[in-house]
Protein backbone atom coordinates (compact mmCIF):
# COMPACT_ATOMS: atom_id res chain seq x y z
CA UNK A 1 0.00 0.00 0.00
CA UNK A 2 2.62 2.46 1.03
CA UNK A 3 4.73 1.49 -1.93
CA UNK A 4 1.88 2.20 -4.25
CA UNK A 5 1.46 5.56 -2.74
CA UNK A 6 5.06 6.32 -3.27
CA UNK A 7 4.81 5.28 -6.85
CA UNK A 8 1.89 7.43 -7.65
CA UNK A 9 3.44 10.55 -6.29
CA UNK A 10 6.61 11.75 -7.86
CA UNK A 11 7.95 14.67 -5.88
CA UNK A 12 10.31 15.58 -8.68
CA UNK A 13 7.70 15.75 -11.38
CA UNK A 14 7.67 18.95 -13.33
CA UNK A 15 5.32 21.38 -11.75
CA UNK A 16 3.93 22.18 -15.14
CA UNK A 17 2.65 18.64 -15.32
CA UNK A 18 -0.17 19.42 -12.97
CA UNK A 19 -1.89 22.38 -14.52
CA UNK A 20 -4.80 22.52 -12.18
CA UNK A 21 -2.80 22.28 -9.02
CA UNK A 22 -0.22 24.79 -9.99
CA UNK A 23 -2.71 27.17 -11.47
CA UNK A 24 -4.44 27.27 -8.15
CA UNK A 25 -1.15 28.08 -6.60
CA UNK A 26 -0.14 30.47 -9.31
CA UNK A 27 -3.23 32.48 -9.67
CA UNK A 28 -4.47 32.51 -6.11
CA UNK A 29 -6.73 35.18 -7.46
CA UNK A 30 -9.51 33.95 -5.29
CA UNK A 31 -7.85 35.54 -2.34
CA UNK A 32 -7.51 38.95 -3.86
CA UNK A 33 -10.01 41.72 -3.56
CA UNK A 34 -10.07 43.29 -6.96
CA UNK A 35 -10.98 46.89 -7.37
CA UNK A 36 -11.55 47.80 -10.97
CA UNK A 37 -12.67 50.78 -12.90
CA UNK A 38 -14.68 51.01 -16.07
CA UNK A 39 -15.26 53.95 -18.28
CA UNK A 40 -18.74 54.96 -19.11
CA UNK A 41 -19.81 57.68 -21.42
CA UNK A 42 -18.15 60.99 -21.02
CA UNK A 43 -16.25 61.48 -17.83
CA UNK A 44 -18.30 58.97 -15.97
CA UNK A 45 -16.78 55.91 -14.47
CA UNK A 46 -17.83 52.87 -12.57
CA UNK A 47 -15.93 51.13 -9.83
CA UNK A 48 -16.36 47.46 -9.15
CA UNK A 49 -15.22 45.57 -6.12
CA UNK A 50 -14.91 41.87 -6.57
CA UNK A 51 -13.73 38.99 -4.50
CA UNK A 52 -14.77 40.16 -1.09
CA UNK A 53 -14.05 37.53 1.53
CA UNK A 54 -16.99 35.68 2.93
CA UNK A 55 -16.68 37.12 6.38
CA UNK A 56 -17.72 40.55 5.21
CA UNK A 57 -21.33 41.32 4.59
CA UNK A 58 -21.28 42.94 1.20
CA UNK A 59 -24.68 44.44 1.66
CA UNK A 60 -23.65 46.28 4.75
CA UNK A 61 -20.38 47.22 3.16
CA UNK A 62 -22.20 48.66 0.21
CA UNK A 63 -24.31 50.74 2.48
CA UNK A 64 -21.26 52.02 4.25
CA UNK A 65 -19.57 52.78 0.95
CA UNK A 66 -22.53 54.68 -0.33
CA UNK A 67 -22.72 56.76 2.76
CA UNK A 68 -19.01 57.32 3.05
CA UNK A 69 -18.27 58.14 -0.56
CA UNK A 70 -21.56 59.87 -1.24
CA UNK A 71 -22.24 57.88 -4.32
CA UNK A 72 -24.76 55.38 -5.45
CA UNK A 73 -24.02 51.76 -5.86
CA UNK A 74 -25.47 48.36 -6.24
CA UNK A 75 -24.81 44.75 -5.57
CA UNK A 76 -24.52 42.60 -8.66
CA UNK A 77 -24.70 38.85 -8.62
CA UNK A 78 -22.44 37.33 -11.18
CA UNK A 79 -22.39 33.62 -11.95
CA UNK A 80 -18.62 33.41 -12.01
CA UNK A 81 -17.48 36.23 -9.82
CA UNK A 82 -20.09 36.00 -7.12
CA UNK A 83 -21.29 39.17 -5.54
CA UNK A 84 -19.79 42.30 -6.93
CA UNK A 85 -20.18 45.74 -5.46
CA UNK A 86 -20.65 48.39 -8.10
CA UNK A 87 -20.20 52.03 -7.29
CA UNK A 88 -20.64 55.13 -9.36
CA UNK A 89 -17.58 57.16 -10.03
CA UNK A 90 -13.94 56.47 -9.45
CA UNK A 91 -13.88 55.22 -5.88
CA UNK A 92 -10.88 52.95 -6.16
CA UNK A 93 -8.57 54.74 -3.81
CA UNK A 94 -11.33 55.46 -1.37
CA UNK A 95 -12.37 51.84 -1.30
CA UNK A 96 -8.86 50.67 -0.77
CA UNK A 97 -8.31 53.17 2.00
CA UNK A 98 -11.59 52.26 3.60
CA UNK A 99 -10.82 48.58 3.55
CA UNK A 100 -7.33 49.01 4.89
CA UNK A 101 -8.65 51.19 7.66
CA UNK A 102 -11.08 48.46 8.55
CA UNK A 103 -8.30 45.98 8.88
CA UNK A 104 -8.23 44.26 5.55
CA UNK A 105 -4.61 43.53 4.77
CA UNK A 106 -3.39 45.72 1.98
CA UNK A 107 -1.62 42.87 0.26
CA UNK A 108 -4.92 41.23 -0.52
CA UNK A 109 -6.30 44.28 -2.26
CA UNK A 110 -5.50 44.63 -5.90
CA UNK A 111 -6.09 47.93 -7.58
CA UNK A 112 -6.63 47.71 -11.29
CA UNK A 113 -7.16 50.28 -13.92
CA UNK A 114 -5.20 53.17 -15.26
Amino acid at each position, binding site marked *: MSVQNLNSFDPFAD*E*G*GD*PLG*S*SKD*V*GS*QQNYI*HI*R*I*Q*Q*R*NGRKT*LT*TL*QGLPKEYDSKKLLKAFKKEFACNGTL*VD*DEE*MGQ*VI*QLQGDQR*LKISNFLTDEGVPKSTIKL*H*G*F
Partner: protein
Amino acid sequence: MASDSLFDPSLKKRKKKQVAFSEDPLGADADPTNPAPTSIDNTTANGEAVDLGPTTAHEQMSQNGRAEDGDEAKKDEDDMFADMKKKKKKKKEIPMDFQTEEGSGTSTPTTAPAATEDLDFSDMKKKKKKSSKKIDLEAFEKELNESKAKDEVDDEGDDGEGLAEIDEAELGDDPFAQGADAPTGVDAGNEPWLKSDRDYTYSELLHRFYASLHASNPSLLTSTGKRYTIAPPSIHREGNKKSIFANVTDICKRMHRQPEHVIQFLFAEMGTTGSVDGAGRLVIKGRFQQKQVENVLRRYIVEYVTCKTCKSPDTLLTKENRIFFMSCESCGSRRSVNPIKSGFQAQVGKRSKNKTG
Protein backbone atom coordinates in the same frame (compact mmCIF):
# COMPACT_ATOMS: atom_id res chain seq x y z
CA MET B 1 10.96 65.56 -24.16
CA ALA B 2 12.58 68.57 -25.60
CA SER B 3 14.99 69.67 -22.99
CA ASP B 4 15.03 73.28 -24.04
CA SER B 5 11.32 73.67 -23.76
CA LEU B 6 11.02 71.94 -20.46
CA PHE B 7 10.90 74.88 -18.19
CA ASP B 8 9.06 77.19 -20.40
CA PRO B 9 5.73 77.71 -18.72
CA SER B 10 4.20 78.88 -21.95
CA LEU B 11 4.36 75.39 -23.28
CA LYS B 12 1.85 73.92 -20.93
CA LYS B 13 -0.44 72.99 -23.71
CA ARG B 14 2.03 70.75 -25.41
CA LYS B 15 0.82 67.63 -23.83
CA LYS B 16 2.20 65.05 -26.14
CA LYS B 17 5.75 66.12 -25.71
CA GLN B 18 5.66 67.05 -22.13
CA VAL B 19 3.81 64.28 -20.52
CA ALA B 20 6.84 62.21 -21.06
CA PHE B 21 7.61 60.89 -17.72
CA SER B 22 7.32 63.39 -15.01
CA GLU B 23 9.00 60.96 -12.72
CA ASP B 24 11.99 60.78 -14.89
CA PRO B 25 14.81 60.07 -12.53
CA LEU B 26 17.23 62.04 -14.53
CA GLY B 27 15.04 65.03 -14.66
CA ALA B 28 14.50 64.81 -10.97
CA ASP B 29 18.08 64.28 -10.21
CA ALA B 30 19.44 66.85 -12.51
CA ASP B 31 21.92 68.96 -10.69
CA PRO B 32 23.82 71.86 -12.08
CA THR B 33 27.10 70.48 -10.85
CA ASN B 34 26.73 67.13 -12.45
CA PRO B 35 24.16 67.47 -15.15
CA ALA B 36 23.91 63.84 -15.98
CA PRO B 37 23.90 61.80 -12.81
CA THR B 38 24.71 58.50 -14.22
CA SER B 39 24.14 56.26 -11.31
CA ILE B 40 20.65 55.15 -10.65
CA ASP B 41 19.15 56.28 -7.41
CA ASN B 42 16.49 54.34 -5.71
CA THR B 43 14.93 57.34 -4.21
CA THR B 44 14.12 59.06 -7.37
CA ALA B 45 12.58 56.05 -8.83
CA ASN B 46 10.30 55.17 -6.03
CA GLY B 47 7.56 57.49 -6.78
CA GLU B 48 5.37 55.33 -4.71
CA ALA B 49 6.55 53.82 -1.55
CA VAL B 50 7.16 50.34 -2.68
CA ASP B 51 9.25 48.53 -0.21
CA LEU B 52 11.88 46.70 -2.09
CA GLY B 53 14.03 45.75 0.77
CA PRO B 54 16.94 47.57 2.27
CA THR B 55 19.24 49.51 0.10
CA THR B 56 22.66 48.16 -0.29
CA ALA B 57 25.59 49.78 1.27
CA HIS B 58 26.82 50.64 -2.13
CA GLU B 59 23.72 52.61 -2.83
CA GLN B 60 23.90 54.27 0.50
CA MET B 61 27.39 55.36 -0.12
CA SER B 62 26.56 56.61 -3.50
CA GLN B 63 23.87 58.60 -1.85
CA ASN B 64 26.21 59.96 0.74
CA GLY B 65 28.60 60.94 -1.92
CA ARG B 66 26.00 63.20 -3.35
CA ALA B 67 24.15 64.35 -0.32
CA GLU B 68 22.49 67.25 -1.94
CA ASP B 69 21.34 65.02 -4.70
CA GLY B 70 19.78 62.70 -2.22
CA ASP B 71 17.93 65.55 -0.63
CA GLU B 72 16.60 66.62 -3.89
CA ALA B 73 15.62 63.15 -4.69
CA LYS B 74 13.68 62.96 -1.49
CA LYS B 75 12.03 66.22 -2.18
CA ASP B 76 11.20 64.95 -5.53
CA GLU B 77 9.64 61.93 -4.02
CA ASP B 78 7.35 64.09 -2.00
CA ASP B 79 6.58 66.07 -5.03
CA MET B 80 5.71 62.97 -6.81
CA PHE B 81 3.16 62.07 -4.23
CA ALA B 82 1.73 65.51 -4.37
CA ASP B 83 1.77 65.16 -8.05
CA MET B 84 -0.23 62.01 -7.94
CA LYS B 85 -2.80 63.39 -5.65
CA LYS B 86 -3.16 66.42 -7.75
CA LYS B 87 -3.51 64.32 -10.78
CA LYS B 88 -6.33 62.45 -9.26
CA LYS B 89 -8.22 65.64 -8.75
CA LYS B 90 -7.54 67.40 -11.98
CA LYS B 91 -6.87 65.14 -14.79
CA LYS B 92 -6.52 67.94 -17.24
CA GLU B 93 -3.40 69.35 -15.75
CA ILE B 94 -0.81 66.84 -16.54
CA PRO B 95 1.57 69.23 -18.18
CA MET B 96 1.07 71.61 -15.33
CA ASP B 97 1.98 69.05 -12.79
CA PHE B 98 4.95 68.22 -14.74
CA GLN B 99 6.08 71.78 -14.65
CA THR B 100 5.62 72.23 -10.98
CA GLU B 101 7.15 68.99 -10.15
CA GLU B 102 10.18 69.67 -12.21
CA GLY B 103 10.44 73.15 -10.90
CA SER B 104 10.35 72.32 -7.26
CA GLY B 105 12.26 69.15 -7.60
CA THR B 106 15.25 70.50 -9.37
CA SER B 107 14.70 74.16 -10.00
CA THR B 108 17.60 74.11 -12.33
CA PRO B 109 17.57 74.79 -15.98
CA THR B 110 19.72 71.81 -16.72
CA THR B 111 17.35 69.07 -17.47
CA ALA B 112 18.45 65.61 -17.99
CA PRO B 113 20.31 65.50 -21.20
CA ALA B 114 19.70 61.84 -21.42
CA ALA B 115 16.00 62.30 -21.12
CA THR B 116 15.25 62.28 -24.74
CA GLU B 117 12.13 61.18 -26.41
CA ASP B 118 12.69 57.82 -24.91
CA LEU B 119 10.30 56.95 -22.24
CA ASP B 120 12.16 55.84 -19.32
CA PHE B 121 10.47 52.95 -17.80
CA SER B 122 13.35 52.26 -15.59
CA ASP B 123 12.09 54.72 -13.10
CA MET B 124 9.18 52.57 -12.33
CA LYS B 125 9.34 51.66 -8.76
CA LYS B 126 10.61 48.18 -8.98
CA LYS B 127 12.33 48.56 -12.22
CA LYS B 128 14.63 51.09 -10.89
CA LYS B 129 15.69 49.21 -7.93
CA LYS B 130 16.08 46.31 -10.06
CA SER B 131 18.58 47.69 -12.41
CA SER B 132 20.60 49.37 -9.79
CA LYS B 133 20.73 46.26 -7.73
CA LYS B 134 21.75 44.23 -10.63
CA ILE B 135 24.44 46.64 -11.47
CA ASP B 136 25.50 46.50 -7.93
CA LEU B 137 25.83 42.82 -8.08
CA GLU B 138 27.72 42.87 -11.30
CA ALA B 139 30.02 45.53 -10.12
CA PHE B 140 30.46 43.77 -6.86
CA GLU B 141 31.35 40.56 -8.50
CA LYS B 142 33.74 42.21 -10.80
CA GLU B 143 35.31 43.90 -7.88
CA LEU B 144 35.54 40.67 -6.03
CA ASN B 145 37.36 39.03 -8.84
CA GLU B 146 39.70 41.90 -9.25
CA SER B 147 40.32 42.16 -5.62
CA LYS B 148 40.97 38.47 -5.33
CA ALA B 149 43.73 38.93 -7.80
CA LYS B 150 45.01 41.84 -5.85
CA ASP B 151 44.51 40.01 -2.66
CA GLU B 152 47.86 38.33 -2.36
CA VAL B 153 49.76 41.48 -3.05
CA ASP B 154 47.75 43.51 -0.67
CA ASP B 155 47.92 41.04 2.10
CA GLU B 156 51.67 41.22 2.08
CA GLY B 157 51.54 44.95 2.21
CA ASP B 158 49.32 45.37 5.22
CA ASP B 159 49.70 42.10 6.95
CA GLY B 160 48.32 43.14 10.28
CA GLU B 161 44.92 44.24 9.31
CA GLY B 162 44.58 41.77 6.52
CA LEU B 163 45.10 38.92 8.91
CA ALA B 164 42.78 40.33 11.46
CA GLU B 165 40.06 40.62 8.95
CA ILE B 166 40.50 37.20 7.58
CA ASP B 167 40.05 35.95 11.08
CA GLU B 168 36.92 37.93 11.30
CA ALA B 169 35.72 36.53 8.07
CA GLU B 170 36.06 33.08 9.43
CA LEU B 171 34.38 33.92 12.66
CA GLY B 172 31.26 35.34 11.21
CA ASP B 173 30.39 33.43 8.08
CA ASP B 174 30.02 36.60 6.17
CA PRO B 175 30.37 36.18 2.50
CA PHE B 176 31.42 39.75 2.03
CA ALA B 177 34.05 39.80 4.67
CA GLN B 178 36.56 37.96 2.59
CA GLY B 179 36.25 40.51 -0.09
CA ALA B 180 36.35 43.28 2.42
CA ASP B 181 39.98 43.05 3.17
CA ALA B 182 41.13 42.81 -0.37
CA PRO B 183 41.11 46.23 -1.92
CA THR B 184 43.01 48.42 0.41
CA GLY B 185 42.16 51.90 -0.57
CA VAL B 186 42.60 55.29 0.91
CA ASP B 187 39.88 54.93 3.47
CA ALA B 188 40.60 51.42 4.50
CA GLY B 189 43.11 51.02 7.23
CA ASN B 190 42.41 54.07 9.31
CA GLU B 191 39.20 53.07 10.98
CA PRO B 192 39.41 53.58 14.72
CA TRP B 193 38.11 50.10 15.45
CA LEU B 194 40.86 48.42 13.55
CA LYS B 195 43.27 48.41 16.43
CA SER B 196 40.76 47.38 19.04
CA ASP B 197 40.35 43.85 20.23
CA ARG B 198 36.61 43.58 19.99
CA ASP B 199 34.82 41.74 17.27
CA TYR B 200 34.06 43.81 14.28
CA THR B 201 30.46 44.23 13.45
CA TYR B 202 29.11 43.33 10.10
CA SER B 203 28.16 46.87 9.25
CA GLU B 204 31.59 48.15 10.10
CA LEU B 205 33.21 45.66 7.86
CA LEU B 206 30.73 46.19 5.12
CA HIS B 207 31.26 49.88 5.28
CA ARG B 208 34.95 49.38 5.24
CA PHE B 209 34.67 47.17 2.22
CA TYR B 210 32.70 49.67 0.28
CA ALA B 211 34.94 52.47 1.37
CA SER B 212 37.95 50.71 0.00
CA LEU B 213 36.04 49.55 -3.01
CA HIS B 214 35.11 53.05 -3.92
CA ALA B 215 38.49 54.38 -3.04
CA SER B 216 40.13 52.09 -5.51
CA ASN B 217 37.38 52.46 -8.07
CA PRO B 218 36.01 55.96 -8.00
CA SER B 219 34.17 55.26 -11.20
CA LEU B 220 31.79 52.97 -9.38
CA LEU B 221 30.07 55.81 -7.67
CA THR B 222 29.26 57.42 -10.93
CA SER B 223 29.01 54.31 -12.98
CA THR B 224 26.21 54.35 -15.42
CA GLY B 225 23.92 51.44 -15.61
CA LYS B 226 22.17 50.45 -18.70
CA ARG B 227 18.62 51.38 -18.30
CA TYR B 228 15.57 49.64 -19.44
CA THR B 229 13.96 52.19 -21.61
CA ILE B 230 10.91 52.01 -23.71
CA ALA B 231 9.44 54.53 -26.04
CA PRO B 232 6.43 56.20 -24.51
CA PRO B 233 3.12 54.95 -25.72
CA SER B 234 1.75 57.32 -28.29
CA ILE B 235 -1.92 57.75 -27.70
CA HIS B 236 -4.15 59.61 -30.08
CA ARG B 237 -7.82 60.16 -29.98
CA GLU B 238 -9.90 58.74 -32.72
CA GLY B 239 -13.22 60.39 -32.82
CA ASN B 240 -14.76 60.96 -29.48
CA LYS B 241 -14.76 57.64 -27.79
CA LYS B 242 -11.76 55.76 -29.05
CA SER B 243 -8.10 56.04 -28.36
CA ILE B 244 -5.38 54.81 -30.62
CA PHE B 245 -2.26 53.28 -29.23
CA ALA B 246 -0.02 53.68 -32.23
CA ASN B 247 3.28 52.14 -31.22
CA VAL B 248 2.01 49.08 -29.47
CA THR B 249 3.96 46.76 -31.73
CA ASP B 250 7.17 48.65 -31.15
CA ILE B 251 6.74 48.47 -27.44
CA CYS B 252 5.91 44.80 -27.56
CA LYS B 253 9.00 44.17 -29.60
CA ARG B 254 11.04 46.12 -27.12
CA MET B 255 9.68 44.05 -24.26
CA HIS B 256 9.93 40.80 -26.23
CA ARG B 257 6.33 40.00 -25.62
CA GLN B 258 3.56 38.92 -27.86
CA PRO B 259 1.34 41.86 -28.75
CA GLU B 260 -1.68 39.70 -28.03
CA HIS B 261 -0.56 39.17 -24.48
CA VAL B 262 0.12 42.83 -23.91
CA ILE B 263 -3.15 43.84 -25.48
CA GLN B 264 -5.02 41.34 -23.43
CA PHE B 265 -3.49 42.75 -20.32
CA LEU B 266 -4.23 46.30 -21.34
CA PHE B 267 -7.85 45.51 -21.98
CA ALA B 268 -8.25 43.55 -18.79
CA GLU B 269 -6.69 46.27 -16.70
CA MET B 270 -8.49 49.14 -18.28
CA GLY B 271 -11.76 47.34 -18.33
CA THR B 272 -12.41 47.98 -21.94
CA THR B 273 -12.22 46.40 -25.35
CA GLY B 274 -10.74 47.26 -28.66
CA SER B 275 -9.10 45.95 -31.75
CA VAL B 276 -5.98 46.18 -33.83
CA ASP B 277 -6.39 48.09 -37.03
CA GLY B 278 -4.71 47.49 -40.37
CA ALA B 279 -1.65 49.53 -39.58
CA GLY B 280 -0.92 47.52 -36.46
CA ARG B 281 -2.24 50.18 -34.17
CA LEU B 282 -4.39 49.34 -31.24
CA VAL B 283 -7.78 50.95 -31.11
CA ILE B 284 -9.01 51.15 -27.53
CA LYS B 285 -12.56 51.91 -26.71
CA GLY B 286 -12.81 54.75 -24.28
CA ARG B 287 -10.75 57.83 -23.68
CA PHE B 288 -7.33 57.22 -22.37
CA GLN B 289 -4.43 59.50 -21.88
CA GLN B 290 -0.87 58.64 -22.45
CA LYS B 291 -0.21 58.77 -18.76
CA GLN B 292 -2.85 56.22 -18.01
CA VAL B 293 -1.73 53.78 -20.62
CA GLU B 294 1.77 54.27 -19.41
CA ASN B 295 0.80 53.32 -15.91
CA VAL B 296 -0.79 50.16 -17.11
CA LEU B 297 2.25 49.35 -19.18
CA ARG B 298 4.43 49.82 -16.16
CA ARG B 299 2.36 47.38 -14.28
CA TYR B 300 2.62 44.96 -17.14
CA ILE B 301 6.36 45.22 -17.11
CA VAL B 302 6.57 44.69 -13.41
CA GLU B 303 4.29 41.73 -13.60
CA TYR B 304 5.26 40.05 -16.81
CA VAL B 305 8.58 41.35 -18.05
CA THR B 306 11.04 41.86 -15.27
CA CYS B 307 12.46 38.89 -13.50
CA LYS B 308 11.26 38.80 -9.93
CA THR B 309 14.53 37.37 -8.77
CA CYS B 310 17.17 39.46 -10.45
CA LYS B 311 15.01 42.28 -11.77
CA SER B 312 16.40 41.85 -15.20
CA PRO B 313 14.12 42.57 -18.12
CA ASP B 314 15.69 39.83 -20.20
CA THR B 315 12.97 37.30 -19.78
CA LEU B 316 11.03 34.96 -21.97
CA LEU B 317 7.38 34.24 -21.61
CA THR B 318 6.34 30.78 -22.65
CA LYS B 319 3.08 29.01 -22.40
CA GLU B 320 2.86 25.48 -21.14
CA ASN B 321 -0.33 23.70 -20.30
CA ARG B 322 -2.27 26.90 -20.38
CA ILE B 323 0.04 28.47 -17.88
CA PHE B 324 2.48 31.20 -18.69
CA PHE B 325 5.99 30.74 -17.46
CA MET B 326 8.55 33.47 -17.33
CA SER B 327 12.12 32.36 -17.57
CA CYS B 328 14.93 34.77 -16.98
CA GLU B 329 17.73 34.94 -19.48
CA SER B 330 20.25 36.42 -17.11
CA CYS B 331 19.75 34.50 -13.90
CA GLY B 332 17.97 31.45 -15.20
CA SER B 333 15.10 31.56 -12.80
CA ARG B 334 11.77 30.33 -13.96
CA ARG B 335 8.45 31.11 -12.47
CA SER B 336 4.86 31.05 -13.45
CA VAL B 337 2.99 34.27 -13.83
CA ASN B 338 -0.59 35.08 -13.13
CA PRO B 339 -2.99 34.49 -15.93
CA ILE B 340 -4.63 37.61 -17.20
CA LYS B 341 -8.16 37.77 -16.02
CA SER B 342 -10.43 40.58 -16.87
CA GLY B 343 -12.76 39.98 -13.96
CA PHE B 344 -16.21 41.33 -13.62
CA GLN B 345 -17.39 43.60 -16.39
CA ALA B 346 -20.27 45.75 -15.48
CA GLN B 347 -22.96 46.51 -17.92
CA VAL B 348 -22.24 49.84 -19.55
CA GLY B 349 -24.21 51.36 -22.31
CA LYS B 350 -27.43 50.19 -23.69
CA ARG B 351 -28.80 46.90 -22.62
CA SER B 352 -30.38 46.33 -25.98
CA LYS B 353 -26.97 46.16 -27.56
CA ASN B 354 -25.93 43.42 -25.22
CA LYS B 355 -28.56 40.74 -24.93
CA THR B 356 -26.62 38.59 -22.54
CA GLY B 357 -26.06 41.35 -20.08
